[in-house]
């Protein structure tokens, strides 16, 4: 075991490691508090942190280290999807094999489990367990995570066909660093029949209310210092795309020199849905959001400038002749401020045919009324701050997005 590997271990060993490895300095030195870049989480799109083949187009990956609470038994897991559209850490059981995380009890007895649903109607199901989570070189934080495990329970009928393996999903887990501190919030604390949280006992799982602090937690909110949000930083990519790119997630907003946000404009978000309004060619699309976890831009084409969909079976992508240039206006919830965003939509078949895996022109249709899903292409060539609900920074109080 090298010093670099050992320095990725949990908080418990930090003092030992400091003496054994001379303080680390590898960019992953949990708990030292002296490294000015301890808040940096390397981010790849189809690159290094994605750990090789098997992923999909425009897939942003980070590495996350999780340890059994209070021990030095840890796993560093790559190909964890960075997702500004969800809240909390969820990891498949398979890469955690043999790691003794601590099962959280449901408030009324039994084991607490969670069913997380996504826009595509897919589901992640599994027990909620305590883990020591290490992000970049930050100190470990002890938070409830979801262990994705379709064999647990069994899952209730309302959690249909949950994902079974990293191979099926295309990733080992999801790091949800969106604007909320926990997976569900007040509705799941108040309502037993919330559809997300279940108490599992004796082979059946029934809905349960769960206090917000026992819900799956966004680990960023628990960091000792850099806890008011994140800044996602990715390089610009030409219209033809690139095989992969490397960027950074900076933990905290304006908490250190490396995550300063001078000159950015903050758009406040709806505190219930984390959305703002996009206006495209005169049509207002409320319910719009920035989402690294979506691998394209998804929006209804303007009525005056229809964009052809691709032929089946990829009709969920746009296939214009060449590139279509558009400009949208994003407006904060409540009426302001507004920011123009220019973007280009490419022909899916030509883009994919190039062999490149990072494609800024990847876009597809959406129904009127669904809002504009500003997926990964939006983040290329930008520094985007995602401000946590109720937390302050130089940009104001969250929830907001800023760039």
């Amino acid at each position, binding site marked *: 075991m090298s010093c670099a590997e050992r320095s990725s271990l949990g908080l418990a060993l930090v003092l030992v490691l400091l003496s054994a490895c001379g303080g680390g300095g590898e960019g992953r030195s949990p708990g030292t508090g002296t490294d000015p870049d301890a808040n940096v989480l390397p981010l790849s799109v189809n690159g290094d942190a994605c750990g090789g083949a098997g992923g999909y187009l425009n897939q942003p990956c980070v590495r996350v280290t999780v340890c059994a609470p209070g021990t030095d038994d840890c796993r560093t897991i790559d190909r964890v999807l960075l997702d500004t559209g*969800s809240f909390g850490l969820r990891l498949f059981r398979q890469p955690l094999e043999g790691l003794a995380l601590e099962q959280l009890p449901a408030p009324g007895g039994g084991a607490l489990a969670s069913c997380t649903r996504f826009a595509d109607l897919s589901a992640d199901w599994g027990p909620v367990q305590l883990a020591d989570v290490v992000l970049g070189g930050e100190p470990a934080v002890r938070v409830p995570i979801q262990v994705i495990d379709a064999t647990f329970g069994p899952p209730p009928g309302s959690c249909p066909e949950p994902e079974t393996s990293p191979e099926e999903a295309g990733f080992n887990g999801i790091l949800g660093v969106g604007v909320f501190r926990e997976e569900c919030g007040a509705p799941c604390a108040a309502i037993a029949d919330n559809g*997300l949280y279940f108490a599992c006992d004796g082979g059946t799982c029934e809905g349960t209310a769960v206090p917000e602090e026992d819900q799956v937690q966004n680990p960023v909110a628990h960091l000792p210092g850099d806890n008011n949000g994140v800044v996602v930083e990715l390089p610009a990519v030409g219209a033809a795309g690139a095989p992969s790119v490397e960027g950074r997630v900076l933990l905290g907003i304006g908490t250190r020199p490396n995550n300063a946000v001078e000159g950015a404009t903050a758009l406040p978000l709806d505190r219930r849905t984390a959305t703002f309004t996009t206006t495209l060619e005169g049509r207002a699309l409320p319910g719009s959001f920035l989402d690294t976890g979506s691998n394209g831009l998804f929006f209804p084409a303007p009525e005056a400038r229809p964009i052809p969909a691709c032929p089946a079976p990829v009709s969920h992508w746009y296939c214009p002749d060449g590139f279509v240039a558009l400009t949208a206006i994003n407006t904060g919830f409540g009426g302001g401020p507004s920011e123009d965003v220019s973007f280009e939509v490419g022909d899916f078949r030509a883009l994919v045919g190039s062999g490149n895996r990072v494609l800024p022109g990847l876009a597809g249709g959406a129904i009127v009324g669904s809002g504009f899903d500003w997926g990964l292409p939006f983040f290329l060539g930008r520094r985007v701050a995602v401000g946590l609900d109720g937390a302050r920074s130089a940009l104001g109080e969250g929830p907001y997005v800023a760039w």
Partner: protein
Amino acid sequence: MWELRRALGAALVLTLAAPPARAALGEREESVGRDRRALAAVARGTDERGGYRVHELEKGATTIREFVSADGVVFAVTWSGITHPDLRPLLGAFHDEYRAAARAHRAEGRRARRVAGERVVVESWGHPRDLHGRAYVPALLPSGVTVDELR
């Protein structure tokens, strides 16, 4: 206490093993009540919208709307809330068709999705805490009703 929980668990299993409630989508208006019971949802009233009627149900923190034509057939279902509802009782006879179409075209990534079977269309969008969807049978849409007004 534990015995009581087991007994309740056994009762739940028996309930689930009973024949499923008949479908809402494509069924008569009376099936809305069966859906409500199958989902353990709360009725929130009805809304007359020129040419069709909308039944609103509340399930946890998710709102479900069932659209009924003038001749009393459920032609669409929409939902909105912190999570997706159980689609089996809502799609009923169309659920298998939807599942088969969804499996045939598994899309990568996490984003909005449109699944079209031979008769039924299921669309879903949003992100965790703010999820939405609608299911409809194009052949059952009353004339003059556009898909965009199904909210």
